[in-house]
């Protein structure tokens, strides 16, 4: 059997030239008369090392990265195929790379290891055993298992998944739905995409289990249109899963059905809000609905609907396969299991870090992130997407825990971590928060629709040193109005980064826009 070489083909690796590397490898090896088997795997999530080329050796997989086209020849010369570690790009055995070895990968255990579309590969890595288990269980038992795992919504709201499922299970209806929120739009986030591109069957399996748990027979993945590769991979994976009996009518001969389709979003951040998402999925404008009624009771087309984030659903196969306890042993307090953190912004080692709850933010940014890319001192970090608070150094020792963050008016959100060095102007960042809301507001409720525009203007006036004190007071009032009055989290949380910038970086608001202190 010829040697297997792995070159990832997720969007990150591709954007960094993985295809060219793969082509060059094939060409060079052909020229050298060597026969190998090239596997286009998923990414390991070590974005700073992409394209990360791996070679399978008798003692395990060896990694090289980041590899460019120009490195290929030299790498082969230096014994790539044998796992030789003499080349400067050699990283040694993949599993021993510190960044990876220090993680607790439950959900992302398979990514980068398998061929994303190979069902055999998936099954060989305990894939579909959660679904097989679920098929043997009563719906209520499945819901109990998820409840016992302590899994909470990974989209950001951290609502207990099992309780949401229970509501849908308890609501009688002629049709129920499972909707996967794959409109991943938070700044610096990519975990959903990695799941879909690198381990699509995990999501499919999680959704099928959810369907069995709440007696829903139809699922939709609401995918952001900016993820064309994820769409391609999911469509193919769904087709293959149907053929293998993991989707469609009569799942694995059980007499139970679950159908799944991918639907593309139309490019609005607000459609990641679950009720807007449902409107959009129904073919309407992405306008936020008021709650109650909860989507779990009146969701898609007015029917009981589970709306879960990709990561929530992706955690489910593990829970069913390994048992709730195996998941719940990880974490701290009411935050059980693991969290997929995504290091981005001004960071040296950006990538996916799956950790049990409880690690500190500082550990994450320093041990994993390796500090800033610029090398300048780190000044602020925004956790949980564009609606998350900016955290100053005094808060970096916070443990990654929903309650600990909430106590500081901060959020973990979807796990996006965007780092800023000392050159950042936090007044400008505060303005950006309002501007983001202005651009992305659905326009339904007044505080968000008009408030975000006024927020930009007021911050501009503060930065231009116009009537500073009065405008600062007005900005505080506006933030309060948006928090108290907005219909959904978009307007309701936009003030968080603004208020945190005001609270922790007041000096930045004392400067005029051209940088002078006044």
């Amino acid at each position, binding site marked *: 059997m010829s040697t297997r070489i792995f070159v990832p083909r997720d969007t990150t690796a591709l954007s960094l030239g993985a295809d060219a590397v793969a082509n060059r490898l094939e060409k060079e090896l052909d020229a050298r008369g060597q026969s190998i088997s090239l596997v286009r795997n998923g990414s390991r999530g070590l974005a700073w090392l992409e394209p990360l080329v791996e070679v399978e050796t008798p003692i395990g997989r060896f990694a090289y990265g980041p590899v460019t086209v120009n490195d290929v020849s030299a790498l082969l010369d230096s014994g790539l195929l044998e796992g030789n570690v003499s080349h400067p790009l050699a990283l040694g055995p993949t599993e021993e790379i510190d960044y990876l070895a220090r993680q607790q990968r439950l959900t992302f255990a398979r990514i980068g290891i398998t061929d994303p579309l190979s069902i055999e590969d998936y099954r060989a890595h305990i894939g579909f055993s959660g679904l097989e288990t679920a098929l043997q269980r009563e719906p209520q038992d499945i819901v109990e298992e998820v409840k016992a795992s302590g899994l909470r919504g990974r989209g950001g709201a951290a609502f207990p998944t099992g309780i949401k499922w229970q509501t849908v299970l308890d609501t009688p209806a002629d049709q129920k739905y499972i909707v996967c929120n794959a409109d991943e739009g938070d700044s610096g986030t990519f975990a959903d995409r990695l799941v879909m591109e690198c381990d699509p069957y995990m999501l499919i399996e999680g959704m099928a289990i959810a369907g069995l748990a709440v007696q829903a027979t139809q699922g939709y993945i609401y995918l952001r249109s900016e993820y064309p590769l994820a769409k391609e991979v999911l469509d193919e994976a769904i087709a293959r899963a149907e053929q293998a009996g993991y989707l469609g009518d009569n799942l694995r001969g059980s007499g139970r059905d679950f159908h799944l389709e991918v639907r593309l979003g139309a490019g609005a951040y607000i459609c990641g809000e679950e009720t807007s998402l449902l409107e959009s999925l129904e073919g309407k404008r992405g306008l936020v609905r008021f709650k109650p009624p909860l989507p779990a009771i009146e969701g898609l087309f007015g029917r009981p609907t589970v709306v879960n984030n990709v990561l929530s659903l992706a955690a489910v196969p593990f829970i069913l396969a390994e048992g709730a306890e195996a998941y719940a042993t990880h974490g701290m307090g009411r935050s059980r299991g693991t969290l997929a953190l995504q290091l981005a912004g001004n960071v040296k080692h950006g990538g996916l870090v799956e950790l049990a709850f409880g690690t500190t933010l500082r550990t994450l940014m320093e041990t994993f992130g390796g500090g800033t890319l610029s090398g300048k001192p780190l000044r602020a970090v925004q956790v949980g997407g564009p609606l998350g608070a900016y955290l100053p150094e005094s808060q970096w020792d916070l443990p990654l825990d929903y309650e600990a963050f909430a106590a500081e008016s901060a959020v973990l959100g979807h796990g996006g971590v965007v780092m800023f060095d000392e050159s950042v102007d936090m007044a400008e960042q505060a303005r950006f928060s309002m501007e983001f809301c202005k651009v992305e507001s659905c326009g339904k409720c*007044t*505080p968000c629709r008009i408030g975000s525009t006024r927020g930009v203007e007021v911050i501009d006036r503060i930065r231009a040193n116009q009537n500073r004190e009065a405008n600062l007071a007005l900005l505080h009032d506006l933030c309060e109005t948006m928090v108290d009055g907005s219909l959904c989290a978009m307007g309701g949380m936009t003030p968080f980064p603004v208020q945190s910038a005001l609270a922790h970086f007041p000096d930045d608001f004392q400067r005029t826009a051209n940088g002078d202190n006044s």
Partner: protein
Amino acid sequence: MINHFDPRQHSSSVEYNKDLGTPFPASAADAALVSLNIDGVTISVPEGTSVLRAAALADINIPKLCATDSLEPFGSCRLCAVQVEGRRGMPAACTTPVAEGMKVTTQNERLAKLRRNVMELYISDHPLDCLTCPANGDCELQDMAGSVGLREVRYGFEGENHLEAAKDETNPYFSFDPSKCIVCSRCVRACEEVQGTFALTIDGRGFESKVSAGQADSFMDSDCVSCGACVQACPTATLMEKSVIDHGVPEHSVVTTCAYCGVGCSFEAQMKGDQLVRMVPYKGGDANHGHSCVKGRFAFGYATHPDRLTSPMVRDSIDQPWREVSWEEAIGFAASRLKAIQAKHGRESIGGITSSRCTNEETYLVQKLIRAAFGNNNTDTCARVCHSPTGYGLKTTLGESAGTQTFDSVMKADAIIVIGANPTDAHPVFGSLMRKRLRQGAKLIVADPRHIDLLKTPHMSSAQHLPLRPGTNVALINALGHVVVTEGLEDKAFVEKRCDTEAYHRWRAFISEPRHSPEASAEITGVPAEAVRQAARTYAKAANGAIYYGLGVTEHSQGSTMVMGIANLAMATGNIGREGVGVNPLRGQNNVQGSCDMGSFPHELPGYQHVADPIARGRFESVWGVKLDDEPGLRIPNMFDAAIEGTFKALYVQGEDIAQSDPNTQHVEAALTSLDCLIVQDIFLNETAKFAHVLLPGSSFLEKNGTFTNAERRINRVRKVMPALAGKEDWEVTQDLANALGYPMYYTHPSEIMDEIAQLTPSFAGVSYAKLEERGSLQWPCNAEYPLGMPTMHEVDFPIGLGRFAITEYVATEERANRRFPLLLTTGRILSQYNVGAQTRRTDNQRWHDEDVLELHPSDAELRGVRDGDWLGITSRSGQTVLRARLSERMQPGVVYTTFHHPGSGANVITTDNSDWATNCPEYKVTAVQVEKVSQPSAWQQRFNTFDLIQRDHLAKANQEAP
């Protein structure tokens, strides 16, 4: 004197002028009561009620902008924020349902601050021109700014804004000023939820969100049907009636009833003195619940149009100019002519036509005049040409000449069959209600040669079209009945208990014959058998199946047969006698039900009491103090024939334009020309009046008191809001004529006429103006047994005891396509115009439809080399006219269609004098024609134009000579 009607003084339970913020919850009819505490006040409301509504009911008025009780809650303005004990944050009261034991705070410092700050945001993007704004004094934004105590706008007015947004003035009746828009979406939601057109949307998102008609179309170019729901819903001056912009906010209002179609919408006539500023649909109206259409809402300008006749006129012959005379002289002239004719040609030589547009009281009086003063039964009404088969067919089968339901009943229907009716054009407000039900999931079946707009209802779940050939209704209804019987879909228990067994078995044997199967009749109707079977199953299997029909059922040679076929189908499936089911004729004119009820037909005294019935006749004779003829008199077509023969010499026509609306125009013209004395009482010089010798100016519905009865038998009050232009209400004129003829009448108010009606008509026995004031409206029968009227008929039994199935043999009309006339013409209405157009043509509704066109299928057009807009000669065996072609996929090949709203179109020059076998209702819906390209108007049109010019000149001369 103007009567001021303030419902607050009359209504015991509901306050219609107060906006409770959210609608009565759909589930609340039988929901449990929930008690909650709002600001220390304990109130019990049905489960499902919003906190906002509960508070409003307790007279605790929480500020609000996006909420209004005609629309589902939306939760966007955030002004109605409240605090609920034990709950986080400040939820919107409009979207928070009540819960047992809930404690709500609606006013405190935090809430006040939030509301003020939200209002500050609103006003930071709103013009500060309150004093010169057309909504000044009638603006919810202004009210709320005052309510929350906004004192400053700290954001200033230099920021981004919409203050320069351009107005859209394209709609003739209202303007759209986006600079004043607060994006509450009430207009968009009204267009969706109330009207069901979905013409409006919000374009863009965030701060860029703006109301848009279609995809950035102007209102006029969009799908907007100008129903006014958006204008009604707008809390600011963004969508505003141009009449209010021009004249200012009205100072008082009077609730009255629309004089257009048979829906009978209630409106507030909003006035400044005796000037009508706007018509606003009245929320307390039982037929329309605050909705309207373009006609009732906006097209009232005809009432003050310069064409209105303001003075009585007489002339000796129709080639003479008119002479303006006093009322006394005109009445005397008319009376002496009538007397002279009767003296010379006999008692039977004169007659009259009552109006389906005038009030019940006026109609009653005209037929009384004819029966008591003329001394014969030569009375008829325009129902002859529309719904007379309904009267005959329903009386024969169900025992009563009227629809069985309320309009609201449709909200409980699960399957709806619409036959030969086009509710979104002809009964728009009911069409909107039906669409609402269709959006909720009711199944629709349309039997119509055309693909009517109802079939394009947005967001409806299921629709079937049975595109039958004109004239084959009975074959289709028999096929539907056949499927019901042969597939075992009957409601046997209902039939056994409620219907005459012998008649049923006869019908059952008849309808089971294979010749009635859908397969056998497909050749006749052109409708595929499987579609018919599906439709029958859908209707019969539905928990509640309802049938609605219009003139496409009645205006046929077998109109009465078809009505009976419909009743058969409803009885066989048990779809009679409860809400959500029934047989529902959609009446064309505002008071066509009333004119029938009031004894307008030659054979029936008021309340459908036959003239031959000595007991009934005796009652009338004793009250009227005259001997009455026991023989039925002449029907309209008989009058025409008799006039041409020379035995019928004089006719009194109140508010009906027979020269335009009746079939075979040239025949009608010949008849009218033969008369020695034609007395026309109308608000305009209509087509009939051009043949008249006495012209008595009529009064519009705004100028008189009375009642109209709509298609659901609902008696609604018509209230006088302005003095009669020519000094007399129509009933006064009839009374004067009676007195001049020597038959005394001494009514001082229409309420006295109603008292007499109640005295003589069993089904009206309990009706009085006092009770109408108290109840708002009453659905007859209203008597000792049903003192508050009867919304749903036949719940327990039929007036004839058991329902009678009728044998409905299909007989093809003689009017069929052949080599000479290969196409079938059918006629109908359009939304913006009404009937003969006398009213709507004198309004800006002309902007939507200023000429009648001939719609034909592109394949028929191609065969004849016809392109859209070509002049087409349309020839039938009756005559020829010329119209422009409009190619339309709504048509099926072989069928062409036109409207009759413009007199010069001559639609009825082509229609024939074929008619219903039982009632003589004309067969308007089937005329075999040929069409060909032409280059000039038809000979009739040329004659019409010349005659029209001469007659206008005759009228102009009278006006010039007036002092």
